[in-house]
């Protein structure tokens, strides 16, 4: 079919930060579906809680301290995470490199403490449904933690190569910041469900 030029786009930029970029929307999409997974797992847990009047099924209380330390570490990590984001928006290489190293370390630290969380639950996954559900919730979040930390480390390495000097890479750093927020925020309700809800029973 015949065409007539109507619009000149030669001046458009070649990348954008945040919601301007499709990657940001893709990340949001994955957060939505993973968040749905968290919500459903939490819903399943609460469903069983309401079903059994003696919930916790005479299991011992979990020791909340490792979980509380993880929570504090994760909340603290939000500050450097957002400082990193402002530098990523400005495409400033040095502070972004430092920020990425910091975030890699701040990702590994809760992962190390997480290792001690599983025994602190004071129950095994195959003891009863209560044990199964809290292991599942903790496992689900740990999977997210591991994948995001892995992702952060790979991106950190990438930022130290010549590939880092590109708008798209700085955009990736921004999306990594965004996803870390998600990992931290999903933890809060799970932390409450695992460590504090059983104390009510």
């Amino acid at each position, binding site marked *: *079919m*015949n*065409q*007539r*030029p*109507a*619009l*000149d*786009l*030669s*001046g*458009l*930029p*070649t*990348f*954008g*930060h*945040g919601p*301007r*970029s*499709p990657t940001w*929307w*893709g990340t949001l*999409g994955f957060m939505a*579906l*993973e968040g*749905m*997974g968290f919500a*459903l*797992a939490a819903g*399943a847990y609460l469903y*069983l809680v309401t*079903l*059994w009047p003696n919930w916790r*099924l005479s299991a011992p209380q979990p020791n909340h301290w490792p979980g509380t330390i993880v929570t504090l570490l994760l909340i603290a990590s939000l500050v450097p995470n957002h400082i990193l984001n402002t530098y990523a928006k*400005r*495409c*400033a*290489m*040095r502070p972004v490199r430092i920020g990425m190293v910091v975030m890699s370390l701040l990702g590994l630290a809760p992962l190390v403490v997480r290792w001690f969380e599983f025994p602190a639950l004071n129950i095994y*996954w*195959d*003891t*009863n*449904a*209560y*044990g*199964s*559900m809290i*292991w*599942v919730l903790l496992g689900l979040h740990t999977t997210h933690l591991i994948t995001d930390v*892995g992702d952060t480390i*790979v991106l950190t390495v*990438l930022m130290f190569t010549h*590939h880092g*000097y*590109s*708008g*798209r890479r*700085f955009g990736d750093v921004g999306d990594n910041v965004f996803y870390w927020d998600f990992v931290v925020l999903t933890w809060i309700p799970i932390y409450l469900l695992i460590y504090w809800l059983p104390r009510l029973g």
Partner: protein
Amino acid sequence: MSSADLTSERDLPPEREASTKGDIAPERDGPRDTGMDDVSLHRWLARTWRTPPGIIGALSSVDHKVIARRYLITAFLFLCLGGLNAVAMRIQLSGPQRGLIGPDLYNQLFTMHGVTMMFLFAVPIVQATGIYLVPLMVGTRNIAFPRLNAFGYWVYLSGGLFAWVSFALAMAPDVGWFAYVPLSGPEFGPGKRADVWAQMITYTEVSSLAVAVATIVTVLKQRAPGMSLDKIPLYVWALLVTSFVVVFAMPAVMITSTFLILDRLVGTHIFNPAEGGDVLLFQHLFWFFGHPEVYIIFLPATGMVSAIIPAFARRPAFGHLGLVLSLIAVGFLSFGLWVHHMFATGLPKLGASFFTASSMLIAIPNGVQIFCWLATLWDGRPVIRTPLLFVFGFFFTFVIGGLTGVMLASVPLDLQVHDTYFVVAHFHYVLIGGSVFPLLGAAYLWFPKITGRMMSERLGRWHFWLAMIGFNAAFFPMHIVGLWGMPRRVYTYPAELGWGNINLFISAGAVLFFLSFVLFAFNLVHGALRGTPAGDNPWDAGTLEWATSSPPPSYNFARIPVVTNVEPLWAERGALPVASGLRVDARELIISTVAEAHPDIREKSATPSIWPLLAAIAVGATFLYSIFTPWAIVWGAAPIAVTLVGWFWPKGDPEDEE
């Protein structure tokens, strides 16, 4: 809107200036399409966007049309396999106490039929149609995240092969496509059959979720300049809403199958009532996915109906806004009715009544759609061609399915017909009438776009009548035999119940219906090889996919169209307004703003890569291994990580760097 508005500075976000500063290498500019003659433009774009030659090249393809063709063919083959399952079951049921197929095989057959039709045919084929058409209809050059899309196909293919190889080894799931616990649980589901079900679900859901995210982002961010929300074609709306439903529904079934496999494999007690679990939890989680699943299959089909009717009624769809709002309403409401699959489990009466009301409510937006389509057809004299015939078939059958759905929504009535052949009839009227007939119409409509050739109209009419008669003969009597007391999922029945004759009739209809697909397959092959050349726009339809050649070139559009109407080709009869200024030596496409579709970024689309296939193999092998040991997740993590790093690590193409 005049095209000058689209680039005026006030519309652009303020960050635009900031983003060009900082520690980034300057753009290595390449040749642009501005003012380039058509021949050189084609030569440049064809070289930039081509799928590399050779087997490795083919396996590396990220072209949405190539991936979609593979999806369509694979899904069609699974349809044939699922259909053969059905024919085998119908032969067994054609008379009382027939001994052709024993319960062990029969239970695998109906499970594989359901699993294949739902997870390996229906969802993939509607998504595949979207993968092909959505980028063309929104006027872009590739789907968003093309490598993710390719990965989705490979995971789907491995999931399908996994299920069917299991069937060939007589270890296919035999617990129904719903796989209720405790029948599928560790105690009553020995062997690996239920594990096959659980992991096959995981494969196919990973694939649908990937496609859903890619589709959403394509629609939100890659629309041609000027295609504001009110100018998005109805088919694209349908796929957008469907993709959102996928994003929120599919995690439920992944959670369900993961819980099941944990119970089976590592001894958790999530569904074990003896240790504080609950068997109905499985059903709640499964149907929280399972009911939206019906709409995941049905909504894209309504989009197809909304594409076929305007083309043949020769006018834009009546009530465009009403149709869009109905789609969104159905998408939301589909999450509020799952319990109507569980009325017979003895839930509290008040709760059940709520779900009766919500199930009735969803009939209203569906009614709005039906009335708007009818009103579109009322206008003039429609051109009656095969695609429209299938839409008539859709009305004839889907309305029956919708009305029996209203019957099932009633709690007391449901208790008589639940899990009987009445329900089998109902959902085949909904799924075949509501989804497969529009899909067949869509096949006739878009076949010329995909292949460049027309399918035979004469064979198309034979196909239509054979399908209509076969379908109704097979499924209408099922309503009756269900009311006579015949339950679902029985491999045989006693002669004295008097169901023999009617079942023989049903089986004859089923064979006829199967033959209609043989005729369809013949028409497809015949059309692809011998069909008359179609030209760009054989139906004189109005949406953007008809603006490019048939089949479309690898880059879809030599110049990105500028959209001024919901039916742009009808509005711009003289010459289509197009954009220029994109690079031709790199895979550039336009990222636009979400609501108004103002052009915002010249984004590079990903180049072909073998890594999505390797990642899919790593993921697939991990899933497969995981039905034998939970350590598979640990061992599988390394290859998956390696392939994903390989996938995302920049290779130095301009597409990677900017």
